[in-house]
């Protein structure tokens, strides 16, 4: 039985705590009385994942077993989550591979020949052949790539279908092949409560025309939080779009959830609570930290990026999305939900080396911002961890680095647009359309491995709710120029950051440290 999540009150006996800081980490001693939010212990993984998948496919929720939905001559499209999930990437075989192989076996047994596989990358960069191969496995890759295993192309006008508008006037435009299929099988990994469900098809296969209806400042400011779907305007929009999609095409969803075994055994101490470290964990910490600091930057990045998590699969549910997703969310909550009493004046987060958009890439300043003020700030239900007007303190070096192939529009966004303003509404109004329709960005998105031109705007909007909520944002160890460009402040130490925060929250603030990763979803009462 795994122990539930809990909140630690820092006292004299509390050891220094792990703080992620980009491609590194440190031990930090927090002020007495600080609260530390820990996730539940990692849940045990399913022993026989293949059997669980088979069981889910044969005993789905709210629909017939998958084999009964498969008929000779039908058009079958298997869609799967792209490389933005899970984080870090999981050790192979990827659970998507295991599912896709079983689905294909069932399709073959039923004489289904017209099968296409599509990565649901929306406006994310295309997955490289190697990344696709890692996700779907050698057997599927060799059988289907490149003709029948593709990335979704949100700018391929001929292969998009406008299905209509929701009652709120939202355009629903998705991949034509999928939309005109007899059956979509969607293979999902739900790492956080925001993923999966109605989001899968309506976002993963959509175009800018469709995405702009929920990926905007207004919607994100009314998604409190986007990890709490009932209170997320963004998810309400997904649901409306899903309703329209369901009228056109049948979707058979397979959703999976993972436990909190985020780091491999060599860095197992990062998965554990600090006071439970044994001698081996302490030695590992010292050795890994020292080696990490001594390594050349490129080598260090390569090693972090090649880290694969030994996740256990905690749930496999298949069938009708509306019946499957509540079960999936329940699994996510079992693994991540921690009850927290009250908000704090200051919240602290240590930002790790990876986010959904820098897999095999560089975490540029905009992505740091979206990871901190977007993903981590929004890891709450009910109320934010930090009170209105409070201060967020993040640990990250925020280097002024960009991947020129993956993030070309981010460079322009950072260098030109943010120098004019950091106001999300102003940027959205003045520049979003320009970036979204820029032919060069579109060319790079379609033919190279670039995120879509509009993507940095979405990342900026991702932090819009936090920016509106917080009184100050401070990055410990952050590059002063880059943090300043984004409208934030940098401090050398936690002590300095707390001193700087005094202007906003006074001299005796309450402090909460949201200890992640592994991820914890704070249920703030």
């Amino acid at each position, binding site marked *: 039985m795994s122990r539930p999540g809990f909140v630690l009150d820092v006292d004299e006996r509390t050891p220094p705590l792990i703080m992620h800081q980009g491609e590194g980490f440190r031990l930090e001693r927090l002020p007495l009385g600080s609260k530390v939010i820990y996730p539940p212990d990692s849940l045990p993984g399913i022993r026989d994942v293949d059997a669980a998948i088979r069981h889910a496919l044969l005993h789905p929720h709210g629909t017939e077993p998958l084999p009964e939905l498969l008929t000779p001559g039908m058009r079958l499209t298997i869609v799967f989550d792209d490389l933005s999930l899970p984080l870090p990437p999981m050790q192979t075989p990827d659970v998507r591979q295991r599912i896709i192989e079983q689905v294909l076996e069932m399709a073959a047994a039923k004489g289904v020949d017209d099968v296409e596989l599509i990565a649901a990358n929306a406006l994310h960069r295309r997955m490289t052949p190697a990344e696709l191969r890692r996700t779907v496995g050698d057997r599927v890759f060799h059988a289907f790539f490149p003709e029948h295993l593709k990335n979704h192309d949100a700018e391929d006008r001929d292969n998009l279908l406008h299905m209509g508008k929701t009652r709120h006037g939202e355009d629903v435009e998705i991949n034509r092949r999928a939309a005109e299929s007899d059956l979509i099988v969607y293979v999902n990994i739900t790492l956080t409560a925001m993923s999966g469900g109605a989001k899968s098809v309506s976002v993963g296969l959509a175009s800018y025309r469709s995405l702009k209806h929920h990926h905007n400042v207004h919607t994100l400011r009314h998604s409190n939080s986007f990890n709490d779907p009932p209170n997320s305007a963004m998810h309400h929009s997904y649901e409306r779009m899903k309703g329209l999609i369901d009228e056109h095409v049948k979707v058979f969803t397979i959703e999976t959830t993972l436990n909190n075994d985020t780091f491999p055994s060599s860095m197992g101490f990062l998965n554990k609570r600090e006071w439970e470290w044994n001698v081996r964990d302490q030695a590992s910490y010292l050795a890994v930290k020292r080696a990490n600091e001594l390594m050349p930057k490129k080598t260090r990045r390569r090693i972090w990026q090649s880290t694969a998590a030994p996740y256990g699969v905690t749930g496999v549910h298949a069938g009708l999305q509306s019946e499957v997703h509540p079960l999936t969310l329940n699994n996510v909550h079992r693994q991540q939900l921690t009850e927290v009493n009250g908000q704090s004046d200051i919240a602290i987060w240590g930002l790790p080396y990876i986010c959904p958009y820098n897999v095999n890439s560089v975490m540029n300043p905009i992505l740091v911002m979206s990871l901190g003020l977007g993903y981590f700030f929004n890891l709450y239900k009910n109320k934010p961890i930090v009170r209105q007007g409070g201060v967020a303190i993040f640990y990250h070096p925020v280097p002024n680095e960009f991947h020129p192939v993956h993030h070309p529009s981010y460079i*322009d966004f950072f*260098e030109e647009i943010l120098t004019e303003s950091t106001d999300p509404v102003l940027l959205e109004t003045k520049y979003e359309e320009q970036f979204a329709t*820029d032919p060069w960005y579109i060319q790079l998105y379609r033919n190279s491995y670039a995120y879509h031109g509009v993507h940095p705007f979405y990342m900026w909007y991702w932090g819009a709710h936090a920016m509106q909520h917080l009184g100050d944002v401070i990055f410990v160890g952050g590059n002063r120029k880059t943090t300043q460009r984004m409208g934030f402040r940098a401090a050398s130490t936690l002590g300095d950051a707390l001193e700087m925060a005094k202007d906003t929250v006074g001299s005796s603030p309450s402090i909460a440290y949201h200890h992640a990763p592994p991820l914890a979803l704070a249920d703030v009462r």
Partner: protein
Amino acid sequence: MILALEYHRSPGRFVAARGLTSTRVGSRLSGMVAGNVAPLRLVNRQAPELPGEGWTRVTPILTGICGSDLSLLTGHSSPYLSPMTSMPFVPGHEIVGRTMDELPGIPKGSRVVIDPVLSCAVRGMEPCRWCASGQQSRCDHITAGRISAGIQTGTCGDTGGGWSRQLVAHASQLHVVPEDLPDERAVLAEPLACAIHSVRRVPIGPNSTAVVVGAGTVGLLTLLALRELTQVGAIYVIAKHGHQKDKAKALGATAVIEPRKAVRALRRVTTARMHTPEMGADFLLGGVDTVFECTGGASGLDTSLRLARAGGTVVMSGMPSGGVDLTPLWFRELELVGAYCSGSDGADFADALRLAGSAPLDGYVGTTYPLARWREALNHAADSGRLGTVKVAFDLAR
């Protein structure tokens, strides 16, 4: 006898100055090299004699230090120009001064600016085809006639130059300065006339796009001329220093861009496509209609060629130095246009004097030096961008 800065023949010093300033570190020491290594010396020499009728002696009040002067002193001017100079000579061609002799229509003591081109009329020759058509800057006779070779005042051994207490000038070179125009603005008339000439060298379509590469004196005045005399649409200025950005904005630049961001920024505003070659800088497919190269440096010209759209135009306003990859010129079928001094039979100078009076040019002549402090002056001029100055000038009255 007059006090003058004299440039004399010294191949050794020329090569040494060139060598020292050719490296990255050395280029930062240009001012020091110009003042200490270049074949320039402060001397007492005979005042230049009047070559004949229609000439006057001129006492300079202020004389600017031009980028082309610095280029000469750091050994970066092209040897191509050597047959068209006569040594030793006194540099300085951006001059506001007072006449010392009576001339028809120009009484003694008039405050004048000088068009430095030493064309047929100056040399007492029958007009060549260019002078006959009012394009004196293209004169074919600049090595002939009653004065020795020299493309302009400041490179001719007989006329003297502005970096002295006295020179001689022909009536056809003189433009009387309006009374209400301060000396600090009048001294900008010559570079402004050149800028106007460069803008008039090419057709600028209504609402077309232009880039000005460099925001020193030439770049800023080219921007002014573009905004005031053409119907150009957006003008983007590539500027290195903060004060240049403010000045360019005040003169009507649409946007001011740092050099390292130029290609990306212009790609975005022109919705062009950017490509990165295996060697060399990024370039655009698409781009701007007209680029004015106002740095005189090879990298400025290289950037210009990479920013112009296919069929677009690159105007070389700065005196060129160094070689560049001309492949874009060939591949994008660009027009490469030279712009030297002023033209239009004096109209450029007249417009320059008018604009010098009305444009927001206060503070452009930031610092003046007496001749005796010439090394400091050259040091300052070579580093003027970083020091927040547009134009450094000699104050010959001190």
